[in-house]
């Protein structure tokens, strides 16, 4: 043995580093919900794509998307996307230092503004979708 030789001990990262620590577990859960966000985006793009193809293609796509398995996916995806969106907004005040009149807005005000913008955007989308032909 080389007595006196520096031999730093390196701890290999544990493959389950995110397990057993609440903040890390919630973070990884949030990252995994990104898969559902992407999948939901693709599903929605599918509606737009088939609508361009014609009424038959659109009807066939709607038929696939209303099957029980697809309904289960939509339910799980909704929970995942809402979790992702809520945690996204929670992080927003820390990323955006919004200054009004020389003073930094409180996190609560930034969060309130974000939720208000979200609600307004959702209302516009709902109006566009529900107003009928």
């Amino acid at each position, binding site marked *: *043995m080389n*007595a*006196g*030789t*520096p*031999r*730093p*001990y*390196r*701890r290999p*990262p544990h493959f389950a*580093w*995110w397990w057993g*620590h609440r*903040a*890390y577990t919630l*973070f990884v859960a949030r*990252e995994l919900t990104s898969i559902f966000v992407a999948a939901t985006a693709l599903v929605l793009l599918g509606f737009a794509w088939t609508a361009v193809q014609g009424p038959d293609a659109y009807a066939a796509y709607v038929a696939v998307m209303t099957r029980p398995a697809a309904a289960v996916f939509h339910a799980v995806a909704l929970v995942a996307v809402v979790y992702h969106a809520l945690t996204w907004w929670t*992080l927003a005040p*820390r*990323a*955006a*230092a919004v200054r009004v009149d*020389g003073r*930094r807005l409180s996190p609560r005000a930034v969060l309130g503004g974000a939720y208000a913008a979200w609600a307004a955007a959702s209302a516009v989308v709902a109006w566009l979708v529900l107003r009928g032909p």
Partner: protein
Amino acid sequence: MAEPTITLEVWRYRPEQDTTPHLQPYQVPYRPHWVVLDAQNYIKDHLDGSVAYRWSCRMGVCGSCGMTINGVPRLSCAAFLKEYFPRPVRVEPLATFPVERDLIVDLTDFLEKLPAVRPWIVRHEAGPPDAEFRQTPEELEAYRQFSMCINCLLCYAACPVYALEPRFLGPAVLALAARYTLDSRDQGRADRHPVVAGPDGVWDCTFVGECTTVCPKDVDPAGAIQRLKLASALDWLRGVVLPWGRR
């Protein structure tokens, strides 16, 4: 009545004789006003002089005594025994850094990365100014929080990105980049940009946010990094939308 005691389980690694680390338990007097560092000093003075650890100021200013205490990166001078009593206290070195001996970690990686972001006020005019730089309270407030860093590196121990991607510049280095970039006296934003927005810079951060949670000085490195991301994205956007306006 006998004085109550508390168990300190101390991570031991002596490179000349150990191939793997182990936890060594010590019984120390429990005194509610003691912090973990007091208990460590008791061990050093009365039980086992061979335990190696860093400390200096005992008041959360020097940043020397960062350790992992019951799984959480903390300053041992700010972690009171009463927070853990009567359960044992497990003291380990800061995670993510190589361990030299016992609780002493090798900080070379951080020290080599730090100069890359030019953590000083960069001025492009030749020579020193004729008078002091003046700042309004608002200009001071823009960076003051980020100037509170004591380089204790608890944020690196809490960062899973740094653990998995050691090339990542890391929270404290990037918070210091923000501290100088947000300073009204500084002109070094463009000089720091290639490093800050480079492959090992802010975009490696996935915003776990634990660096901010463990920071003993409320520096908010996670917030600093997100703001640098925003600035970097806006710079890029300006370059795309207004290429003639690129500075």
